[in-house]
């Protein structure tokens, strides 16, 4: 049995196609690195100023001046470039990054995303999330379906301060993969061991489900 995180990551890796420029947010998304087929030609962008990140070869010593935006030591693949923060965000704002993966505190039916601040509790800043959320063509949210108290993270309307409005394309949790459409959240894939009713019960937003076309993961 894969863990919830493994299930999310394996499903997320299927969203990446050859030739893409990919940004991996801090936390869970960074681990997608380990799920990319070695022969898949993608360029991983990290907003601290590198295009073409890769995992450090086993046994190789880390270069102390090469990290990704999550602070992990990285290597680079052939064809990589490094650059300053203004150019890095120009690349994002000019929509040259094709897909980005991020965590979420809340996400809603309209594709609104909240992942940077919980007023009165947690406000360490926003980092590069706002530009990525607003300007990357496909934003895929990777998160647990519910918070640690069991409350749904997927809502009719976000209540927390937004990172960006109407920015999310796809939400992947351990329970389902859900596309944001004009008509609402459409379930594409559901976890193998889960019933449609159980998914609806764990979700704070209305879901569009066509059982005849539903994938399993």
């Amino acid at each position: 049995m894969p863990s919830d995180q493994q299930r999310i990551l394996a499903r997320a890796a299927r969203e990446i196609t050859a030739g893409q420029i990919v940004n991996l947010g801090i936390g869970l998304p960074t681990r997608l690195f380990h799920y990319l087929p070695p022969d898949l030609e993608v360029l991983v962008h990290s907003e601290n100023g590198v295009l073409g990140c890769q995992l450090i070869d086993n046994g190789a010593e880390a270069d102390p001046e090469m990290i990704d935006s999550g602070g992990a030591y990285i290597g680079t693949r052939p064809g990589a470039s490094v650059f300053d923060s203004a150019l890095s965000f120009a690349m994002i704002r000019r929509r040259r990054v094709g897909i980005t993966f991020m965590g979420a505190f809340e996400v809603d039916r309209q594709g609104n995303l909240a992942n940077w601040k919980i007023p009165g509790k947690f406000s360490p800043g926003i980092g590069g999330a706002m530009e990525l959320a607003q300007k990357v063509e496909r934003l895929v949210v990777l998160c647990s379906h519910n918070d640690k108290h069991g409350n749904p993270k997927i809502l009719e309307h976000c209540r927390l301060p937004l990172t960006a409005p109407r920015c999310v394309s796809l939400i992947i949790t351990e329970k389902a993969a859900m596309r944001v459409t004009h008509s609402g959240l459409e379930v594409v894939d559901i976890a193998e061991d889960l019933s449609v009713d159980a998914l609806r019960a764990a979700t704070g937003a209305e879901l569009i489900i066509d059982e005849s076309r539903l994938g399993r993961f």
Partner: protein
Amino acid sequence: MTRLNDKYMDIDAAIARIEDGASIMVGGFGSPGTPFALLDALLEQGQRRLTLIKNDANESDIGIGKLIGAGRVDRLITSHIGLNRVAIEEMNAGRLTVEIHPQGLLAEKIRCAGAGHFGFLTDIGLGTEIGEGRREIDFDGKTWAVEPAIHADVALVHADLADRYGNLVYRGTAINFNPLMAMAAERVIAQAFAVKAPGGLVPEQIHTPCAFVSQIVQVDPATSEQGRRAHAI
């Protein structure tokens, strides 16, 4: 390995995608950095009603000078056309619309498009004729002029080295507007004297990361106008 990031292409195929009426940024300050081979292919293919954005108009018998002389350019956005007699005649005859910007503002307007912003606020040109007609806003008791970004459909740039992903390295005073334009246009066609396999360039020395570049064309320094003649701004 899939090679979807390979942008190496035949020069005619790259230029053929440019349509009549396109707006085209052209690198170069005088001859250095002017993508002569790309411009010659554009001349040969016959696209018309072009808007060109270039620091200067080259001289009348090279580079964009030939396109202007052939009547293919409706509009030129530039900082100076003083050494191209034909461009001045075409302008005076009303066949070529010339829009003049101070050189540093022209560079910054292009850079601003490449940075993904709408415009910037400057004090350059306040109190001069060049500043007339600009929108001005007051901020903290001072006046600033709004300079909107300049975008283009296509950029034609000249690099010294490239790799097949489209990473670019420029050299000498052939850098000039090239890295700015390579970020500002929707589609970027780059010519380079040498095109290497990915990994053939040093990451720190890449001026334009491949994310901004659409097609790479190799040109031979020995047969190009690049560096083969006297030139001026």
